[in-house]
């Protein structure tokens, strides 16, 4: 299987830099997800790998062989698009056979491949039908079958599930993961959905404004986001960001809403830092920084001796198995997930699990490694 390496790749459209000197490597058989908000350059990057877009700088290598100038056909990549791009005038079987016909594969071989595809994707009854009338999930299955039937060097998927219903999406995600593992084909998957990325990826390449922000496994990215953007983009509900400020008053640290002007109109709440957090704050030695903590690591009245702030519960509800409570600091809502549901309006101590408190530079958003 193919190793993909991208070296210093740049794509510039007029005055927009879509991809900015990006380098990464996808190991053989690995499933790597390009993740990021829309306009971050992930699709452009994928199109460069496919050969549909010529980069303005840098190199793309398959198995250390330069392919940068080659046409898509000469790269032998397969791609599944966000919008179903099956050939409407051809039957499902003809669609799947199209790349084989285009390459002049002998008829007998095509027949074998079609039988394999029909069995592998369970398309038996659909093979003779026209793709237009199939449900969306089946359409993408056909697209996937068409992509892998010719044993491509790379499988490229551009938001293949975003046009599907929630239910289909779960099923397809599972099937896709299974397919990739069984075929062992090196795969690049583009999405803006962090849940999709977390559940599918061997490794996530997080992008923003054409730059690579973090390149790590899902667990690592969740536990150790490299900056505020990564911390916010990964995880659901999103991480809380509190603005913390050193105070000369009785409490050494005050918390205020991130967005609020400082000093806020009496909205600041004292942060009762645990000894551990206080030591970290002192080590950083700044007067201002951003404190990030995921709702999952923000409970109520915990006995674990974590850092805490006293707040009013403005909202409390249960989603399936999880309790959630919201509180407001300086007009911004924050969320936590307590063990037991508090009463709305109650005054409680919101307690953070210290190990999972992230500290970011208030200006640049970079994480402090302490």
């Amino acid at each position, binding site marked *: 299987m193919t190793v993909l390496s991208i070296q210093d790749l740049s794509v510039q459209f007029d005055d927009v830099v879509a991809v900015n000197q990006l380098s990464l490597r996808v190991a053989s058989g690995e499933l790597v997800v390009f993740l990021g908000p829309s306009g971050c350059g992930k699709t452009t990057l994928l199109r460069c790998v*496919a*050969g*549909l877009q010529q980069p303005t700088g840098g190199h793309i290598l398959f198995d250390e062989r330069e392919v940068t100038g080659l*046409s*898509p*056909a000469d790269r*032998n*990549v*397969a*791609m599944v*698009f966000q*919008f179903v*791009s*099956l*050939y*409407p*005038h051809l039957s499902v079987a003809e669609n799947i056979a*199209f*790349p084989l*016909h*285009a*390459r002049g594969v002998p008829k007998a071989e095509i027949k074998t491949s079609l039988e394999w595809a029909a069995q592998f994707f369970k398309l038996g009854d659909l093979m003779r039908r026209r793709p*237009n009338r199939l449900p969306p999930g089946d359409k993408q299955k056909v697209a996937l079958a*068409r992509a892998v039937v*010719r044993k491509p060097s790379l499988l490229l998927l551009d938001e293949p599930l975003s046009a599907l219903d929630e239910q289909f999406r779960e099923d397809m995600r599972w099937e896709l993961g299974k397919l990739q593992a069984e075929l062992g084909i090196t795969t690049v998957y583009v999405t803006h959905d962090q849940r999709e990325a977390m559940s599918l990826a061997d490794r996530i390449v997080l992008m923003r404004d054409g730059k690579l922000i973090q390149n790590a496994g899902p667990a690592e990215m969740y536990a150790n986001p490299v900056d505020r953007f990564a911390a916010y983009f990964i995880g659901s509900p999103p991480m809380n960001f509190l603005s913390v400020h050193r105070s000369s008053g009785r409490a050494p640290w005050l918390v205020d809403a991130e967005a609020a002007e400082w000093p806020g109109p009496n909205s600041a709440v004292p942060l009762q830092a645990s000894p551990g957090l206080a030591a970290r704050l002192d080590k950083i030695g700044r007067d201002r920084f951003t404190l990030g903590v995921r709702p999952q690591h923000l409970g109520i009245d915990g006995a674990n001796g974590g850092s805490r702030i006293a707040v009013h519960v403005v909202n409390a509800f249960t989603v399936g198995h999880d309790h959630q409570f919201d509180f407001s600091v300086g007009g911004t809502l924050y969320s936590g997930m307590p063990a037991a549901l508090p009463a709305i309006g109650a005054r409680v101590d919101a307690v953070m699990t210290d190990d999972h408190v992230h500290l970011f530079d208030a200006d640049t958003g970079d994480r402090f490694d302490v």
Partner: protein
Amino acid sequence: MAASRMLRKPISDRTLCTLFLVPSLVILAVMVAYPFLSLLINSTYRFSALRSNVEPVFVWLDNYDFLLSDPDLWDRFTFTGTFVVLTVSVQFILAISVAYYLQRDFRGRDLLFTVLMIPMMLSPIVIGFLWRYIFNSEWGLMNFFVTRLGFDAIDWLGVTDNALIAVVIADTWMWTPFVILLAVAAFRGIPVSIQEAATIDGASPFFRFTRLTLPMSAPILGIAFLLRLIDSFKQYDLFFALTGGAPGSTTETVSFYLAKVAFSYFYTGEASALAVIQLVIIIGLSLIFVRLLTRIGRQRQ
């Protein structure tokens, strides 16, 4: 007050629909139904519109019998058929080849397409006369180039085959842009992602064009084809202006012959019967046309 009176008794949707339909139904009845019925009736009489003093004689289907057993008419049908096949196929081969190169965006695209429209906006009669000058065997532009290239001057309009080619050239000049426009629209209507999918699937540009672009444009190209087919089948003006049916009457189309029977010979009965025959053929072609339209509708769903 007036407003409240109108509100008191609202007109039902059905009545409103009927009211809106009435004017066009009246116009249709007067402009289409009546002439058609009178045409049908006329075609069963022997009479001449010139001689109103001679009583028309009811002859059942004798006019049809006479026409269909007339070898002159079959010659006209053969000639018209040859013209239709030639002109439509030349136009389509030319138009599709040109459209292939005009699919992409390029500078001056809008201007080029505007220029392409010009021949369609001219009257066919004017075009006919223009080309008559161009094909003039003594001082025409065509023979100027032909002799410049070292060939003998061609008697364009004096020899039947040459005259046919001359009209095909003029008709092609006039109508190829129309087919180009439709073909480009059809080609560009194919989603980019489908073309990209095929590129990635390893299809060469030629393979993509023949296996994707053409079949997917087939409904629109089919409509253009039928429009051109019906139109060239009815062709009259270009022949009238360019050849006048000459040499002899060898370049007369069915329509040309019809006009001659109706308004030169004033055999009104026979002319009516011929018009009915032509109508039946055109209705047959139109039925295919409508079938195609509905198929496109179904595909777009």
